[in-house]
Each structure stands twice: as C-alpha cells, then as structure tokens.
C-alpha cells in the first residue's frame, strides 16, 4: 500500500524529474539552475536511499522518510524527502485511522512512549537555548509524524482507504497545527554605527503548503504590489525597494519543520548574522535560520545617500506558532485577568510579577499593558519600551516577540471560527463534534460552545498526554453506552484537526460511519457537564483582552 501512497503524493520515483519540477515551480531560468542543479544532484543521490527503502519497505512511508532526520542535518536531502507536503497530513490521518482500530488501552500508551521518544531525540539534537515550549511543540509534531511506525499490522489493512486523501490538497496546509509562519521585521544595527538600513513595513507569511517557497528580491512595479501581510496563507514574493537587492536575491524555505534561507545568486550577497552565504551570483546551500536571526540583503552602496541605496536588514521571527496558540501561559494569564475585579476571594499569590519593577502585576486598580504574547506589565513600567523610537514596533522584553502596535485590531477569532464552521456543514463533523464531547474532562468547557472543534484541537495539542490518559477511561465508557462502530475515528486523536481531516477527506470512509450521531446526544452530553464554567484551563471566545489565536495586534 505504501507504494501507492508514495505515488499519490506526487513524488516520482526517480529524483531527476522531481528536480526539474522544482525548478519549474520556482520559475527559474536555465542558467540560474546550473550550480544548484549540481548541488541537488549530489544530494538527491543520497536521498535516493530513503526513497528506495520507503518504496520497497511497504510498511509506513511517512515514517521511514521523515523520522530518520527530524532536524535537517542535510538540508537538501531532507528537502527532497519532505517535498510532498501532503505526506505529512497523510501520516496524521493514518495515525488516527490506525489507532482507532487499536484497543483503547494500547493506543495512549503507545502515544506516550512515542512522544517521550521523540522528545528525547529532539532534546539531544535541538539547539542549546531553545526554550522548552518550543521543543515541546516540535516534539508533538514529530510524534505525529512518526506515530504510524509501530503499528504495521492494522496500518496495512486500513490505509488503502486514505491513500487518495492527500490528493485533496487542502488537507495539510489549512489544518496542520504548526503552520509555517515567518515574519520579517526591519532591523537597525545599533552596535555598528552604520547608516540606517532600509525601512520597510513588517512582512508576515504563512505558507499554504510546506513545499512553497518565499522568494525575496527587488521590488518591481511589474510584479504588482504584493500585499505585505496577507491574512490567508500565502507564498507571495517579498520585494524591497533597494538597488542593492537583486531581482532574485534569496529564498526562504520550510523544510522538516525548520526554516531555511538560501541565496539564489544575488550579486551583492545575502548575510545571515553577518556571514555571507555565497559568492556573488552564486547559489548558496540551505542555511537553517532560527528566531531572532538577522538577515542582510546586499551592502550599502556608497555612491548615494538615498534610501534606495541602503541595504536591507531583516530580523527573522519564526518558530513562534506555539506562542500564538492557546498555551499554558496565556490561558493562565487569562484566568488571572478574568478574576481580576472579582474581589475578596481572588488569590493573588500566584500573580505574575512585572518584569520591569518586579512588583505584582495582576492586581486590580492598576493600569496594565499586555502584549500579544500574554506577558503583562504595569503600563507605567513598560511605557518606555512602547514609546520608543521603534514605535509602532514593540518587542516583548520577556520573550522578544515582536508586535506591531499599529496593526489593525483583529477582533474575535474569526479565522478559527471559519474553520470550525466549514466542517460543521457536512455529515461527519457531527461525529467529530461528538469526539469533542468525548474528550477529557479537563477541556469540558468547550462543550458549551458552538462548534469548537478547532479550539479544542489547539487546546488538546497542549494537553496531549493528559488527554490520552483520560481518554482511556472515556472511551471505555463510550463503548458501553454507544453503538458506534469500532472503526470510528480515533477517540485518542489528540488534535481534533487530525480527526477532522480524517473525517472530511477520506472517500469511502464516510458511509461506514454512523453519519449523524443524534444531536440529542450531544446536547445531552453538554448538559451533563455543568461544572464547566470554572475550568480555568479552557479558552473562551469571549475573553476580553486575550487573543487566543495570537493574531491580535499582529500584522
């Protein structure tokens, strides 16, 4: 089955056509592709090995290709192996399908070991000063990718159905939890008293699919004016109005959960943290970039003082998606804030301190400022950083996340809601709705909300392990009082997105489902959980200053 899977993810067996396809995708001219062609040829040779094995192996393609190098040690290699973005989505679907056939007891434990395994692996590889939450997030995604491996038996029998699912195209990008988002901020080098670099509006991009590439070059009238910050996922090129930027200057690629940069033959160079990536007009290899890196395009042209001769310095912000979702921290802050005015019994012992004055910050009758990252300070303390020369850009002094304070207010969680409503219209979503109800008690409050599968998915991402454990009991209950067939989507699917993509996109799967779980059951379940209102860990849409999708105040 796996051979058919690999084929359906549109990656030809031989690396040569795929290489050609890549370049045509990037609309490259022939002469440009020469140096990189040589490069990729060498790498594709080595990348054949995993491909071959995945083809002949016929057990779990997603695993065998992605798991050997979760951190891309060989950028180009992993780029090729990961080229079919849908395979990721497929892997996750496979996971939910597979695990549903497992016994309730075995699946969660399986997941547990998986997660810890991959966490351990990650910890050994990951960079030294990566904050724990990030590692955690990466671990979860990795465990999703690699989950199918230890369950060869059921996988074989089940997978024939979802093979065509990845062709759907919309599976992966719109629904994967960790969307590849990168943001570019103007950076002024304060140490070297050089001339200011080119000012530009901060740019944000969320890749529609992992195989997309963000091209960066000189702004050209002919290309039209690309939106600096499209709200929808986009891989629109990024242009800078500077003479020292080449038309095709560099590219940003997302490979195996890691952003990379590559000079595509610029004349005046791309610099990553002051290191030049390649000789003039030469294509560089892929360099991985991390949050906070400084990328400089070109060097100042000394012949003129105009802005158009300035180089571009970009501060990269990436890998922060964990911060833009509900997480332990911002949920905690939210609950503290919600109880702020509630007076007598409120417990302020666990209050955060203002990192500026070290005083307790979450007390009533104080003017506070909260950034999009949910860090809070006294307004008086933080005002110095708000009204800085950099205004409207604000950098959180705690976590260094950038916020554009002048960005339009993004009221509500619109994008989230839209995503929730889509599936609510077709049949299987009823089922996923029920899964929501069947989720662990710690997230019970979501039941009182209308169609919140995504919200739950986000939440559950965080409480993956806990949920798995608790689902263990829940599912037992369910099987006794529910007549659902055993091949229903995995109740243990930690992320509801998994379940939903499984429900929505697998042809031939839907009919076998009890199409509509009686809605009475849902409401019954909902009314069964009256204690929900007090749960502090649950995100709500009506939360005042908190933006759970993290987009408020961001460009």
């Amino acid at each position, binding site marked *: 089955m796996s051979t058919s899977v690999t084929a359906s993810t549109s990656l030809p067996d031989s690396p040569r056509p795929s290489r050609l396809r890549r370049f045509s995708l990037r609309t490259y001219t022939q002469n440009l592709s020469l140096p990189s062609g040589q490069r990729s040829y060498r790498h594709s040779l080595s990348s054949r090995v995993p491909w071959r094995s995945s083809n002949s192996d016929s057990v779990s393609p997603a695993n065998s290709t992605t798991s050997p190098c979760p951190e891309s040690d060989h950028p180009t290699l992993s780029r090729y192996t990961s080229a079919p973005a849908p395979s990721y989505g497929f892997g996750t679907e496979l996971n939910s399908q597979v695990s549903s056939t497992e016994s309730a007891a075995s699946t969660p434990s399986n997941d547990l070991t998986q997660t810890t395994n991959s966490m351990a692996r990650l910890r050994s590889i990951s960079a030294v000063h990566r904050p724990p939450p990030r590692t955690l997030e990466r671990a979860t995604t990795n465990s999703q990718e690699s989950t199918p491996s230890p369950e060869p038996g059921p996988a074989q029998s089940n997978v024939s159905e979802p093979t065509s699912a990845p062709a759907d195209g919309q599976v992966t990008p719109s629904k994967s939890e960790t969307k590849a988002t990168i943001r570019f901020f103007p950076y002024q080098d*304060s*140490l070297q008293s050089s001339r200011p670099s080119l000012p530009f509006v901060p740019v944000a991009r969320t890749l529609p699919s992992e195989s997309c590439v963000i091209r960066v070059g000189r702004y050209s009238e002919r290309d039209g004016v690309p939106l600096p910050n499209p709200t929808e996922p986009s891989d629109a090129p990024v242009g800078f109005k500077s003479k020292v930027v080449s038309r095709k200057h560099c590219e940003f690629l997302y490979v195996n959960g890691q952003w990379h940069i590559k000079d595509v033959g610029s004349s005046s160079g791309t610099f990553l943290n002051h290191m030049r990536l390649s000789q003039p007009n030469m294509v560089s290899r892929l360099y991985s970039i991390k949050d906070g890196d400084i990328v400089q395009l070109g060097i100042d042209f000394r012949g003129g003082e105009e802005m158009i001769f300035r180089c571009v310095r970009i501060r990269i912000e990436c890998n922060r998606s964990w911060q833009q979702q509900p997480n332990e921290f911002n949920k905690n802050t939210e609950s503290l804030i919600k109880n702020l005015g509630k007076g007598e019994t409120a417990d302020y012992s666990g209050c955060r301190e203002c*990192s*500026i*004055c*070290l*005083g307790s910050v979450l007390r009533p009758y104080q003017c506070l400022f909260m950034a999009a990252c949910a860090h809070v300070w006294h307004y*008086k*303390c933080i005002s*110095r*950083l708000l009204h800085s020369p950099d205004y409207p850009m604000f950098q959180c*002094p*705690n976590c*260094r996340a950038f916020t554009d304070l002048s960005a339009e207010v993004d009221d509500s969680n619109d994008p989230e809601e839209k995503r929730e409503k889509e599936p609510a219209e077709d049949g299987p979503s009823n089922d996923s709705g029920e899964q929501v109800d069947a989720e662990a008690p710690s997230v019970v409050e979501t039941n009182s909300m209308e169609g919140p599968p995504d919200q739950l998915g986000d939440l559950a991402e965080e409480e993956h392990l806990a949920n798995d454990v608790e689902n263990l009991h829940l599912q037992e209950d369910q099987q006794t009082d529910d007549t659902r067939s055993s091949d229903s989507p995995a109740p243990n699917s930690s992320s509801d997105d998994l379940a939903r993509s499984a429900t929505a996109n697998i042809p031939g799967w839907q009919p076998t489902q009890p199409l509509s779980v009686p809605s009475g059951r849902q409401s019954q379940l909902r009314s069964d959980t009256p204690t929900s209102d007090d749960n502090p860990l649950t995100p709500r849409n009506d939360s005042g200053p908190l933006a759970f999708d993290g987009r408020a105040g961001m460009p």
Partner: protein
Amino acid sequence: MGSIKRISKELTELTESPPEGITVELADESNVYEWNVIMEGPEGSAYYNGKFLVKLSLPTEYPFKPPTVSFATKIYHPNVTNDEKGSMCLGMLRADEWKPSSKIAAVLQFARQLLSEPMPDDAVEGRIAEQYKNDRGRYEEVAREWTRKHAC
C-alpha cells in the same frame, strides 16, 4: 525613578536569601547603583577558597540597560580582562542580549558559573583562553597561584 524601587527590591532579596557563594552589599549606602559583591570561588574550580570582590554597576536606565560586572580582585580567567578594570564579558550583559526581565541574582550566578566553566570561545583574554584549551594543567596552576596571591 522606577529603577531605584526595583534595585532596592532586588537588593533586599539578595541580602535576605543570598545565592550560594555570593554576598552583596552597597558600595555606598546612599547610592544603590554601585554594588560590592563578594564571590567565593566555586568548589572544584581553580578559584576555590578565593574570595573575589566584584563590582556591579547599574545604569540609571536599569533594567532597560544591562549592568556591568568587573572584578576588583585580580583573577586569571579567560573571560575577565587582565587589567586594573577586570571587566567581565558576559553574553547576557551585551546590549542586544539583555532582557529587562533578567535579575541581578541571575547575572551574579551566571558570573560565578563562569568561574567553574570558563568559556574560551567567548574570551577577552585570548592567551588565557588558548592555554585553557590546550594546556589545562598549566592554566589551573596559574589560576590557583593567582587566587592564592590576590584572593585569599
């Protein structure tokens, strides 16, 4: 003058529950911006048994600007300049690395950590760093010698 409030708060914390091997006091009771810190050489390091006087100086913009740390006691260490200033190069104290949320306690602990584990790649004294990397025995000998001579 928010900085004074924060600094006194940190000073109180540090005097009430000082971190291991670190004692702080104001160099001058009327000036909260200059601190004297007595740092004991960590056990197991070449500086063990030494008591080093470290001057911590806080800018008026603290905590928005980082403090500076310098060794008033001579010390043989790749990350401390071998002159009368004895300034110490700490990554977290560089202007672009500094976070207002870092506390003085963390800075001092980090500095003491640096005594047990010098960072030769981030050195200000290239010669000592070289020796630390290539001739550890000799380095420790000299460091011990200096500790005995200056810090006891």
